[in-house]
Structure formats: structure tokens, C-alpha cells
């Protein structure tokens, strides 16, 4: 008799939390100009009872998820909006959103957000380092504009004459090798290398690499 009661309880609890998701796994290709990617997860309460969404959690502080309200009557639809802040991220990013309902607190719906972020301009490495007293041998930084990006490298400059730069252009405006040579490595020093671009046209971005003698 107890077993029957437990089974009934489990079945009833499942029926309480029957959210049907239209597109729980979303793949988004971000544009080079995007700062935020927004994904909308549409759902319907396909059960016969009210569903209360207790919590919506994300796997990363870079993603926030918002919900207009918590209670959904049978047949009622709703939407969770996930906002992914790109920040300095590039490449393939996978994030998860966990939706917990009152009926199934230990069995959340897992929504997936996959974002491909193109890197407009790649500066590698961002740091060139010499130890104090080390031979002042030249070191190189490679600057590459992503395929398909309209950006062009306009100039590479440094903020201090304590390092010498020489720029060898590869594909015009699209790739360059910057050779950095410090004048003196006998004491700690720092410099910034600025890579000026023409993109976006209304507010062209600069990218940076750093020179340190430590």
C-alpha cells in the first residue's frame, strides 16, 4: 500500500512540472561587432497542473537568464531570455541554463547555449617579457585579422621610446609580425604596443600588447 502511495506521489509530482521546450539547445554565431548574445527559450506548460518555476541558474557569471513570471497555468507559454556577455571571449563557448520547478526540484531542465565568437583581431602573445639583465634579443608579436572581418591594421606604435618596433606586413592590412627590441634590460621597464585598426568605422578599436622587463 505504501509503495502504491509513493508511486502515485512520484507520478503526480512529474505531472506538475511538465514544461515543453521549443528549442532547448541553441547555437548562435556571433557577429564581430556583437558585445552581447541573446537567446530566447520558449516553453509551454504541457501538463494539467500549474507549474511554478522556482529557479533559473546559469553555469557562468557571464550569462544571465530572466523570466517574466514564475507561475504558468496548463497550456500557458512563457520565455526565458538568456544574455551572454562576450567580454574578451573568443571561439567556441558552451553555457548551460538550469530551470528548476517546484514539482521537480532535483530534476531541472537543462538548456544549452553554444556561441561561436569570431576573433576580429588576434594578438599573440599579448605579453613579451625579458628578465632584468637578460640579453635584449628581439621578440615577436603576431597580429592577424580574422578571415571575413572587414577590419584592417592601420598602424602599430609604442608609447615609449625605450623599446624599438619593426613591423613586417604579411597580407596588407590583414596580418603583421611586430618585432620588439628593448633598448636596455638592466632595469625594470614597461611599454604598451598599440595596434590601431579602422574597425568599426564609427569608433575604431585599438588592440594592445604589453612589453615588460622584470
Amino acid at each position: 500500500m505504501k509503495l502504491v502511495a509513493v508511486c502515485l506521489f512520484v507520478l503526480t509530482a512529474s505531472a506538475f512540472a511538465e514544461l515543453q521546450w521549443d528549442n532547448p539547445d541553441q547555437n548562435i554565431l556571433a557577429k564581430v561587432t556583437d558585445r552581447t548574445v541573446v537567446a530566447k527559450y520558449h516553453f509551454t506548460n504541457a501538463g494539467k497542473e500549474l507549474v511554478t518555476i522556482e529557479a533559473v541558474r546559469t553555469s557562468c557569471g557571464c550569462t544571465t537568464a530572466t523570466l517574466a513570471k514564475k507561475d504558468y497555468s496548463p497550456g500557458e507559454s512563457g520565455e526565458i531570455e538568456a544574455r551572454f556577455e562576450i567580454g574578451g571571449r573568443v571561439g567556441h563557448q558552451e553555457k548551460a541554463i538550469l530551470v528548476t520547478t517546484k514539482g521537480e526540484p532535483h530534476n531541472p531542465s537543462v538548456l544549452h547555449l553554444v556561441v561561436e565568437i569570431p576573433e576580429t583581431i588576434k594578438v599573440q602573445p599579448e605579453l613579451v617579457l625579458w628578465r632584468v639583465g637578460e640579453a635584449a634579443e628581439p621578440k615577436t608579436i603576431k597580429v592577424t585579422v580574422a578571415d571575413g572581418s572587414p577590419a584592417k591594421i592601420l598602424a602599430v606604435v609604442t608609447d615609449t621610446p625605450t623599446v624599438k618596433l619593426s613591423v613586417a606586413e604579411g597580407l596588407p592590412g590583414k596580418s603583421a609580425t611586430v618585432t620588439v627590441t628593448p633598448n636596455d634590460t638592466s632595469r625594470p621597464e614597461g611599454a604598451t604596443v598599440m595596434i590601431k585598426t579602422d574597425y568599426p568605422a564609427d569608433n575604431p578599436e585599438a588592440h594592445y600588447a604589453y612589453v615588460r622587463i622584470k
Partner: protein
Amino acid sequence: MTGWRQAGLILCASAIPGAFSAAFHPRRPGWVQDALKPGEIRLADVEGWRGTVRWVDARSNGDYDLGHAPGALHLDLLSWPAAFPLFLDQWQPGEKVVVYCGASSCHLAEEVAEKLRANGIDSVYVLQGGWEVWKARHPSQ
């Protein structure tokens, strides 16, 4: 025989407080330790290191403002362009760098650690359990 009995009594007398500590001490070690992922480090191991440890807080700016490890620098991928040169000004070659985020479930610390390594920063670790573990160990800070 009396000797065996005394030894048994001593063992019992020490086992009782030991059992209480194991069950109720706020800083008791866990019975099972999670395996370390590549690049991860346990807080107990960090506390055993000699020399300077450079702490990096990869959580959001708001979480950092609410509390962080003493001397920790805020550096996440959102603040990277502005914060990375600040990190470079403080960091010294040879120092161990420990990056943490909110908890084991977050990946922000791994992202930041990976980017630091890609730029030639050696000895970069991710704190297992993140801020949750640090806070549990230092509840007053």
C-alpha cells in the same frame, strides 16, 4: 592483561573526542576529496606554499566588491583589456598565480587561467571549489 586494558581505555578516551571533531568541527576535512582537474590546486596545498601567491578573482566585479581574498586582483574576460596590464604591473616572474571564481561549477577561473598561460605566465592554477572554499576556510574575512 592490565596493560592491554589500559591501552584500550586510552584508545577509547582519544577516540571519543576524535569522533566528535570528525563529526562536528567546522573545519574538519572531508572524508572524500574530489579529484583535481588539470591545472587545479587545493586551498590546503596553496596554504602550504612558501613565497608570494598572486590571487586573481575571476568573478564579476560586483561579487569582487562584496568580498575577495586579501590582495586579490579582479581580472575576468570582460575586464581583461583594462585589468591585464594592472596584473602585469603587480605580477613578478616566478610567482605562483591562483585564479578562483564562485564555485566548482563556474568556468570563469579556467578561462582566465588559460588566457594567462597562453600569454606565457607560468605557474597558473585554478583554486578547486573557488570562493566557496576560500570563504569557508576564512569565514571572518
